[in-house]
C-alpha cells in the first residue's frame, strides 16, 4: 500500500466514525439540537477555519459540515489531495470530539485527568510566551510510547527545554504511572484518551491563525502558510500507526508539523516531514531539528532543571523545605547599577547561614542584591531586569516565586533541596540568566545573598526601600508629555504580522508585558529589534493622541497594513491588537460606557459576550472602532480612552479584575474627576449579569457615564 493510500484509508475511517457519532447524537437529541464547544468565539473552530461556516445544530453538522469534509477527500495521487484528506481527517476528528461534548450536555466528556478542548483565553495566554520563544516549540505526542520510562523521559525532556507538550492516547496513562506532573499551567497537557482528541491541539494552532494572524476563515492556503511558518509544532507518533493516525499525520504535515515515528512497517520517509526513527535517546533533539526549533542555550550551574514550563508549578506547604516571605519576615530582591570597579563578575557571596543549616519547613529571611556594571547600563533598566527575576526563579523545577520587590514569597521544595539546591544557586541562576538576556547592557554581574536576619532587615529598610521609592518617583514623573519619544513593539509580528504596538509611559503594550521602560531597554539591548523609536513629530490632536510620527511608525512597521492610529481613543483609529492582550474593552451602548473583560474571566459580560467573543472582534492587527485590546495596567491610566472621557466610562469589570486595579483606578478617578471610591460604582458579574441589571446598578450608584454623551 502506498503512503497516500494509507492517508485516504485513514480519512475514510475517521470520516465514517464522525458520521456514526453524528447519527447517534441526532438519534438522541434530534437535528435541531444546538452544538458548540465551550469558551470559543470560533464555533467549531477547525471546521469554521476551513469552511468559513459556523455549524450551530446537529442538522447543520450532518447536512452541511460532513458533506464539506467529504468534498476534501479526493483520492487522487497528488500531495494536494493527501493534504486535504489529512485536513479532512482532522475535521472528522473535530466532529467526533464535538459529538462527545454534545452527548455530555456541552460539558467536558472526560474525567479530570484529560484537558479536552482549549478555550480562546488559554490560546491567547500562549501568545506572549510563543513569540518570546519562552515556549520555543510544541510537541504533540501520540502514544503509547514503547515504555512508560521513555514516555516520562520524553515529556520531562521537552518540558525542561521549554517545549509545550500535548498528549493523546495511551501515553497519558504512562505519564500518570511515571508520576509526571501534568496540566495546562505547567505546559504538559493531556488532551484526551483517544486519537481524535488530538484535534484539540490542532484547534489551538488553527485558532492562532485566526486570532493572531487575522487569516480569513476559508483561506486554506493562508491557514497552511501561517501554521507552517509560525507555529513551531511537531508530532511524535508511536508504533503501531493506524491508518487514522497516518491520516491525521497527513493533516499535521499539511499544517507544516513534521511527524517523527518509530513505526517502520508500511511507512515512508519524507524529508523534514515524516521521519522514521527509533533512537529514543535522541528523539528530542531529532524532533527539534526536524521542526527547525532553535533553543536559547543557557548553561546554568544549578542542580535542577530550569525551563519556562515549570513557571506554573505550585509548591504546597507539605512539600516545602524553606520559605521566605516578605510579608512575614524580611525578604526582598534588588538590582543595582554600580561602577565597573565595584563589581567582580560572577562573584557570588552568601551572608548568613546556608539552606541546609535551617530546619526543614523553616520560614527564613532571604534577600539577594544583584549588582550590574556595564557601559550601556542605565538606572532605568534596573526595574526592567529586576522584574524578570520572578520568571527566572519560577522557571526552576521545584522552586516557586511570587510577588516583587520586598513583597516576595519564595518556596524551595524538598525535592529541589534534596537535588542539592542551596542559597548560592540563587546567585548562579540570576548571574547566568541576566548575563544571557541582558548581555548588551550587563558587562559584569555579581550577586550577594543574605539570610542573616539583621543584615536582611537593615538592607531592606535602608537600601531597598529607598531605591524603590526613588524609582516610583521616577515612574510617576514619566508621562506621555514628559518624554521625548515613544517606542514601537513588534515582538508579536512573528505571530501577528501586521500589528504594531505604540508603547508610551502611560500606555504599556497590550499584552501587559512591555512598559515604556522595557521598550527603551529592549531598544538598547537589540538596536535592530522589535522596539524602535517613535518620534512625537507633527502633533495633530492632543485629545485623540494623534501624531504624524506615530502614524509614520505604524505605517512603516505594519508595512502599510495600518495607516494611522490614535493613542487615546477607542472610537477613532484605535490601536490594533495582536491577539495576546490581557483585557479587552468594548462599548456598552445603553450606558454610554464600556465594559472591560480580562482573559481569565470565562463568563458573559452584560453585553452578552464572553472575553473570547469580544476578543474575536479584533486582533490580528485589525482596527475595530469600539473594541480595543489592552494591558491591565492601562486601566488606571489617565490616558485610558481619554478622548472619550477617560476611566469614568468604565461601567463593568469582572470582580477579580476590579479588585486588582481598584487602588490605582480609584486614585485616577479622584484626581481626574474628584470621585471617591470610583470602583464601587463599577458593576461586576455579581451585581449585573445583563444590561438591564447593569442599568439599574449604574442608576442606583449614580455612575457618571450615564450623564455623558453617547460614544457613537
Amino acid at each position, binding site marked *: 500500500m502506498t503512503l497516500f493510500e494509507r492517508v485516504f484509508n485513514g480519512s475514510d475511517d475517521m470520516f465514517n466514525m464522525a458520521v456514526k457519532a453524528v447519527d447517534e447524537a441526532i438519534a438522541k437529541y434530534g437535528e435541531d439540537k444546538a452544538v458548540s464547544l465551550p469558551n470559543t468565539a470560533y464555533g467549531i473552530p477547525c471546521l469554521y477555519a476551513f469552511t468559513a461556516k459556523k455549524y450551530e445544530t446537529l442538522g447543520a453538522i450532518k447536512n452541511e459540515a460532513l458533506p464539506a469534509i467529504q*468534498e476534501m477527500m479526493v483520492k487522487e495521487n*497528488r*500531495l494536494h*489531495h493527501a493534504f486535504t484528506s489529512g485536513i479532512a481527517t482532522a475535521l472528522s476528528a473535530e466532529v467526533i470530539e464535538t459529538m462527545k461534548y454534545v452527548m455530555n450536555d456541552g460539558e467536558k466528556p472526560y474525567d479530570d485527568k484529560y484537558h479536552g478542548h482549549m478555550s480562546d483565553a488559554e490560546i491567547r495566554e500562549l501568545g506572549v510566551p510563543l513569540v518570546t520563544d519562552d515556549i520555543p516549540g510544541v510537541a504533540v505526542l501520540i502514544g503509547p510510547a514503547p515504555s512508560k520510562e521513555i514516555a516520562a523521559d520524553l515529556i520531562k525532556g521537552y518540558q525542561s527545554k521549554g517545549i509545550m507538550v500535548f498528549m493523546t492516547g495511551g501515553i497519558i496513562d504512562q505519564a500518570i504511572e511515571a508520576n509526571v506532573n501534568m496540566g495546562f499551567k505547567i505546559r504538559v497537557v493531556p488532551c484526551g484518551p483517544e486519537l481524535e482528541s488530538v484535534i484539540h491541539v490542532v484547534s489551538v494552532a488553527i485558532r492562532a491563525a485566526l486570532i493572531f494572524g487575522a487569516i480569513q476563515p476559508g483561506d486554506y*492556503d493562508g491557514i497552511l502558510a501561517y501554521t507552517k511558518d509560525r507555529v513551531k509544532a511537531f508530532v511524535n507518533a508511536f508504533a503501531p500507526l493506524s491508518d487514522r493516525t497516518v491520516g491525521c499525520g497527513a493533516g499535521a504535515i499539511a499544517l507544516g508539523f513534521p511527524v517523527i515515528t518509530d513505526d517502520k512497517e508500511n511507512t515512508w520517509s519524507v*524529508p523534514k516531514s515524516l521521519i522514521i526513527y527509533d*533512537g529514543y535517546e535522541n528523539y528530542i*533533539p531529532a524532533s527539534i531539528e526536524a521542526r527547525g526549533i532553535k533553543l536559547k542555550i543557557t548553561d546554568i550551574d544549578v542542580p535542577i532543571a530550569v525551563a519556562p514550563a515549570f513557571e506554573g508549578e505550585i509548591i504546597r506547604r507539605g512539600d516545602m523545605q524553606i520559605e521566605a516571605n516578605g510579608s512575614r519576615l524580611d525578604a526582598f530582591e534588588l538590582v543595582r547599577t554600580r561602577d565597573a570597579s565595584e563589581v567582580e563578575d560572577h562573584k557570588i557571596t552568601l551572608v548568613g547561614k546556608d539552606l541546609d543549616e535551617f530546619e526543614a519547613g523553616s520560614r527564613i529571611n532571604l534577600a539577594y542584591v544583584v549588582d550590574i556594571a556595564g557601559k550601556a547600563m542605565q538606572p532605568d533598566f534596573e526595574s526592567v531586569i529586576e522584574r524578570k527575576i520572578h520568571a527566572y526563579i519560577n522557571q526552576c523545577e521545584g522552586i516557586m516565586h511570587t510577588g516583587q520587590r520586598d513583597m516576595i514569597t519564595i518556596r524551595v521544595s524538598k525535592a529541589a533541596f534534596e537535588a542539592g539546591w542551596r542559597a548560592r544557586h540563587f546567585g548562579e541562576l540570576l548571574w547566568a540568566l541576566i548575563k544571557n538576556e541582558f548581555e548588551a547592557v550587563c558587562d559584569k554581574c555579581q550577586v550577594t545573598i543574605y539570610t542573616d536576619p539583621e543584615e536582611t532587615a537593615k538592607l531592606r529598610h535602608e537600601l531597598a526601600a529607598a531605591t524603590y521609592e526613588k524609582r516610583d518617583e521616577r515612574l510617576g514623573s514619566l508621562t506621555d508629555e514628559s518624554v521625548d519619544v515613544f517606542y514601537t513593539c513588534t515582538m508579536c509580528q512573528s505571530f501577528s504580522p501586521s500589528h504594531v504596538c505604540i508603547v508610551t509611559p502611560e500606555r504599556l503594550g497590550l499584552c501587559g508585558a512591555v512598559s515604556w521602560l522595557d521598550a527603551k531597554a529592549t531598544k538598547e539591548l537589540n538596536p535592530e529589534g522589535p522596539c524602535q523609536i517613535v518620534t512625537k513629530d507633527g502633533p495633530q490632536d492632543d485629545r485623540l493622541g494623534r501624531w504624524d510620527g506615530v502614524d509614520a511608525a505604524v505605517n512603516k512597521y505594519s508595512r502599510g497594513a495600518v495607516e494611522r492610529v490614535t493613542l487615546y481613543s477607542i472610537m477613532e483609529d484605535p490601536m490594533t491588537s495582536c491577539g495576546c492582550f490581557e483585557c479587552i474593552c468594548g462599548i456598552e451602548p445603553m450606558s454610554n460606557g464600556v465594559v472591560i473583560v480580562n482573559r481569565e474571566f470565562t463568563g458573559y459580560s452584560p453585553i452578552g459576550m464572553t472575553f473570547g467573543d469580544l476578543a474575536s472582534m479584533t486582533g490580528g492587527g485589525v482596527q475595530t472602532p469600539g473594541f480595543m485590546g489592552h494591558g491591565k495596567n492601562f486601566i488606571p491610566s489617565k490616558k485610558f480612552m481619554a478622548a472619550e472621557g477617560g476611566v469614568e466610562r468604565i461601567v463593568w469589570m469582572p470582580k477579580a479584575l476590579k479588585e486588582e486595579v481598584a487602588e490605582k483606578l480609584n486614585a485616577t478617578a479622584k484626581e481626574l474627576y474628584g470621585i471617591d471610591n470610583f470602583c464601587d460604582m463599577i458593576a461586576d458579574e455579581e451585581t449585573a449579569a445583563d444590561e438591564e441589571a447593569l442599568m439599574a446598578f449604574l442608576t442606583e450608584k449614580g455612575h457618571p457615564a450615564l450623564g455623558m454623551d453617547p460614544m457613537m
Partner: protein
Amino acid sequence: METTKLTALEARIAKATEKLLIPIEKMEEEYAKLHDIAVAKGTETWEDRKAAQKPQCTFGEEGVCCRICSMGPCRITKKASRGICGCDVHGIVARNYLRFSAGGTAAHSDHGREIMHTFSQTAADKDYQVKDVDKLLKIAKDWEVETEGRDIYDIAHEVAEIGLLEYGKVHGVQRFIKWASKDRQEAWAREGIEPRAIDREIAECLHRTHMGCSSEPIALMRQALRSALSDGWGGSMMGTEFSDIMFGTPMPRDTEANLGVLDADCVNIIVHGHDPSLSEMIVKYAEDPELVALAKEVGAKGINIAGVCCTSNEVTMRHGIPMAGNFLQQENCILTGAVEAVIVDIQCIFPALGPLSQCFHTKFITTSEIARIPYATHIPFSVETAGANAKAIVREAVENFKNRDKESVYIPDMKRKATVGYSCEAIIKQLDTVTNSYVDETGTYQPLVDCITSGVIRGAVAVVGCNNPKIRTDFGHIELMKKMLKNDCVIVLSGCSAQAAAKAGLMSKEAKDICGAGMKRVCELADIPPVLHMGSCVDISRMMRLVCDVATQWGVDVPQMPVVGCAPEWMSEKAVSIGNYVVATGIDTFLGVVPYVGGSDVVSNFLQDGIKEWVGASFTFETDMEKLGDLMLENIEAKRLALGI
C-alpha cells in the same frame, strides 16, 4: 468550500502565474516590436526566412532523400520504393538518422576535446588554472593516476593526456561509463553498445553509412546508440567535468533573465555559443579596472555581460551572468541597438548575425576556426594568449560604445529573477539541508528518493533542448514545465529550455507557488526553485550521472524510475545525439518535434518501441504539447504503479 478543492489549487496556481510569470503573449509583443525595427532597417529575421522557406521539403522531413552518393539524389516515393543502389526506405532513413546523430556527437565531443586541450595547458601562473581540486583528484583516482605527493598541475596534465586519448584510443571503452549504474553498464555490454574511442565511433558512423555499407536499419540504430553514448558518457561528460575543474563546479547563485537584462547605460557584450574557455576570460576582463575606467570614459556606466545559448548557461552557472535569451533571441539582442559586441565561439550561431550586425553599430566577433561566419570580425582566440585576446575583444566592445545610436535603442522592459547553478554536487549539498542529523546520512540522494517513493514528488522530468521555429517559441518548454510542476514533478533543465524557464520567471524560488502541493512543499523545505538549472547542453551529462546515482541509491535500474526526458522544441543534430544517449541510459524520452524518420515505419517504430528491448527505454514523438505532457505523466504513473509506490 471551493478553497479546498482542486479548483482552489488551480486558483492559487493561476494567481501566482499571473503575478510571477511573463506570459508568452507579452514576450511575443516585444519580439514583434524588435521585428519592426528589423523591417525598418530593411533587414530580416528568422521569422521572415522561415516564411520564405515554406513549404519545407517533405522528402527531407520524412528522411527519405538520400544524397550519400552521386548516383542520386534518390528519394523514395510511391512509385520509387528503392534508391538506385537498391536501398529501401528503411535503410535510407536509418542512415540519415545515424549521420544526423553523428554530427551531434562530433560537435559535443569536439567541444569536450577543446576543453581538454585547454585543461592540458593549465598552470598556476597562467590564465587557466585548477579550481576544483577535489573533482580533479577524484577523476585522477578513478583513472588510476598517482596523486600522492604530486603537484596538482602534474596530475592535471597527466589526466588531460588520458582524457584526450579517450578520443582516439585503440582499445577499450570509455572510462566514464564506470560511473553509470551497474544495471546500465550490464545492459550496454549485453547489447554491444559500450562506446569505444569517440573519434572511432563518429568515423564508424560515417563509414557504416557510406555507399555500399550498412542498409539494415536496426544495425544502424545500434551504432546510433553506441556513438551517442560516446558523447553523453564521453565527450560531453569530459566537457562538463573538466570545465568544472577549471572554472569551478557550479553552486546556487542568483541572476536574471530575458532581454531586459541589457542595460541602456552600459556597454553591453553578448557572449554566445558553447565553449566556456573564451567567455570565462571575457567575464574576467569585463571587471578589469582599466577597461571599466575606459567604459566610463566613453560615457557608459560600466560593462554589462549577458549571454545567449549555452555559453550563457556556462557563465551564469558559475558567475551569475544574466541570460539575455535562448536560441531564437540571438537576433533580437542585436535588434535592441544596445549591444556593442556579440562575441561567439562555436555552435548554434546564426550566420544571419553577420549581415544583421552590419545594420547596427554592433561588432560581431567570431573567435573559433570551427565557426567562421561571413561579415564577422574574426579575432582568433587561443589558450596560450587567452587573457590578452579577451582583453582586446572587450576593449573593442567598449570602444564601440560611442558608435551606439542612443536615440533608437529599444530594450524590452522584461526580465525575471532566477536561481541557477545546480550541479550534481550542488543538488546533494541542497539535499543535505533537509536531512536530520540524528537519522540520516548526508552526501546522498536519499532525500530525493524518499520524496519520490512517498509520492510527494511523482517523478522527475528533464526538459532540454533548443528552440525550433516549428513550435511557438518557448511555448513547448513553458507549458510542459507548468504542467509537470502542477503535477508535482521535479524538473531539471539545461540548454535553451533552461533559459526559456528563466526568461518566463519559472526559475525563481517564488515560482513554488505555481506548483502542486508536493513540489511547493519540496521547494520550501529545500529552498530551491521548482526547476533546477543544471547547465549547458553538454551538461546533460550531469543529468546522466544524477539518474544513475539516484538509481544506485534507490536500488533500482534507471528504466524503472519515474523519470522522463523531454525535448519539446529541439532542432540540432546534437539534440538527436543527446536523445540517443539519454534513451540508452534508460530514460524514456519525449520529443515535440519528430526527427526525420517519418518515412520508415521500421525506424520510427523501433525508436518508439523496439529499442526498449535493448535499453529499457524508448522515444515518444508527439507534436501536440498538451498530449505530450499527458503522455509523460502517464508514463510516470505507470512506472510508479509497477514499482508499487
